[in-house]
């Protein structure tokens, strides 16, 4: 065995030596194709920039506080709401709705995607109704859901789950179907039983699709939450904002919006972190 063969492949450089040396001898400052190296905490730069514009604009007096409350006022209001015990319970109620809706939606979406992705009959039965649901906005379904399930928590969680189900289904199904056909051939030559084929080839192969769906699902879960909390709710962040709108409390509305934004950003980050850990075997432009 020569050194060429035994040397462990470097994580970033392709095993072809010409490519490696060509890269090294390239003149400095020349732009490389591909997005390049990852910026540490790069995903925070955009939101921070936006925040900066808001702070600067308010400090300079360019933004009318009646239109958009200054950030420090928002912080102050948030603190007051928290201290008087008005924010905490609402936040908790919202978080619970989000978590339950997301869980049920993900489970339902996954089951439907697997049924429809692995069998032609399953697809024939499941795919049509899901596509129909996809083209009907949750907002349009709401009156019917209200009639069916009342105005209690059940209706809210079902509504959120219905919104979550769609992206999970679409992307997991797509992930299942776009697995390289050669892996199926390979599994055949290994004589894998159907159960092992599903568990060890199909599901891991569909994980990238599932995670993409998960990112849409998390956002969609928050969106549905806003909708259900502003229609017929008596608690939750959305209800708090609705009430504030009635009394013209711009600062409270902004507190609600910022909370939604923060929660959305945090949950998306969590999904991304898990995705990165689980999908270490994938080498894409992202890394």
């Amino acid at each position, binding site marked *: *065995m*020569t050194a*060429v*063969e035994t*040397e*462990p*492949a470097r*994580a970033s450089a392709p*095993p*072809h030596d010409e490519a490696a040396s060509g890269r090294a001898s390239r003149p400095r400052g020349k732009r490389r194709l591909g997005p390049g190296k990852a910026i540490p905490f790069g995903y925070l730069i955009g939101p921070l920039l936006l925040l900066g514009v808001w702070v600067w604009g308010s400090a300079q007096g360019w933004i009318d506080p009646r239109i958009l409350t200054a950030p420090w006022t928002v912080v102050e209001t948030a603190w007051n709401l928290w201290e008087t015990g008005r924010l905490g319970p609402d936040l908790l109620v919202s978080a619970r709705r989000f978590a339950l809706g997301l869980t049920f939606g993900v489970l339902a979406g996954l089951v439907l995607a697997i049924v429809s992705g692995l069998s032609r009959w399953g697809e024939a039965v499941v795919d049509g109704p899901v596509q129909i649901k996809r083209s009907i906005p949750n907002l349009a379904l709401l009156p019917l859901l209200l009639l069916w399930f009342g105005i209690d928590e059940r209706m809210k969680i079902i509504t959120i789950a219905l919104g979550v189900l769609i992206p999970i289904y679409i992307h997991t199904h797509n992930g299942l179907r776009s697995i*390289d056909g*050669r*892996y199926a*051939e*390979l599994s*055949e*030559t*290994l*004589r*894998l*039983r159907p159960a*092992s084929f599903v568990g*060890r*080839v199909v599901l*891991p*192969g569909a*994980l990238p699709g599932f995670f993409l769906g998960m990112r849409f699902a998390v956002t969609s879960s928050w969106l549905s939450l806003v909708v259900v909390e502003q229609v017929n709710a008596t608690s939750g962040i959305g209800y708090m904002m609705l009430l504030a709108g009635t009394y013209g409390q711009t600062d409270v509305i902004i507190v609600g919006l910022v909370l939604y934004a923060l929660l959305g950003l945090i949950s998306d980050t969590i999904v991304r972190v898990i995705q990165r850990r689980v999908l*270490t*075997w*994938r*080498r894409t432009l992202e890394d």
Partner: protein
Amino acid sequence: MTQTRHAARVADTARAPGAVVLTDVVKRYGRGPGAVTALDGVSLSVEPGSFTCLLGASGCGKSTLLSLVAGLDDISGGSIDHVDQPVAMMFQESALFPWLTVAGNVEIAMRVRGVGRAERRQKAAELLETVRLTGFAHKRPHELSGGMRQRVALARALAQDASVLLMDEPFGALDAMTRDILHDELERIWRERSLTVLFVTHNVREAVRLGDRVVLLSSRPGRVLNVYDVEMDRPRRIDSAPVANLAASITDALREEVSRHAG
């Protein structure tokens, strides 16, 4: 000439374990006037423990032939016999599951046969040692070089414990140096385990370097054009004069065949 030789070989080989006998194999794709005949009456008998290289221009149906032997596709006519024994197969690309570790990729071949966990682990370690990859058990395929990945694929094929090993251009994507080393390794393993190897390649020198026999296939439809017995001592060097000479004459025959179809 090929036919009589085939008949004689079939008689000799009988139905010994490790033997593969192809008789008038036909493969057609599609129906009616649009049908394409990929293979047209391919007869070949592979003796147990022999190393046979299938050589031909791209699109001559040599990979198709291998899939038929592997049972991945149905034949349209003729017969393929390999005494009900399992065959192992090794591909050029996508030969490993990227989400499994090296050990996981090897073990999955044993899992289906109901081999217990401890035994699986031990056997995988042995096989990785055989292909000289000790210490890489917990790496993922993307962390390995192309040559190392093919070593893992070879270890997995061996884990299937089949006496027949089908290889579809397994070293086609590797650089010359790595390929050269893997030729030595494959030859060693083939001898140690008395495997029957069917090896598809479009590289003439590689075929002469490795094969006891080199079977030259014609293109569209695929037929056996000629069979060359390679009577040279092993191990052979791919750059030695005898290998180069035989390769040159086979290349001439191949070139004639390719130009007959205008490329």
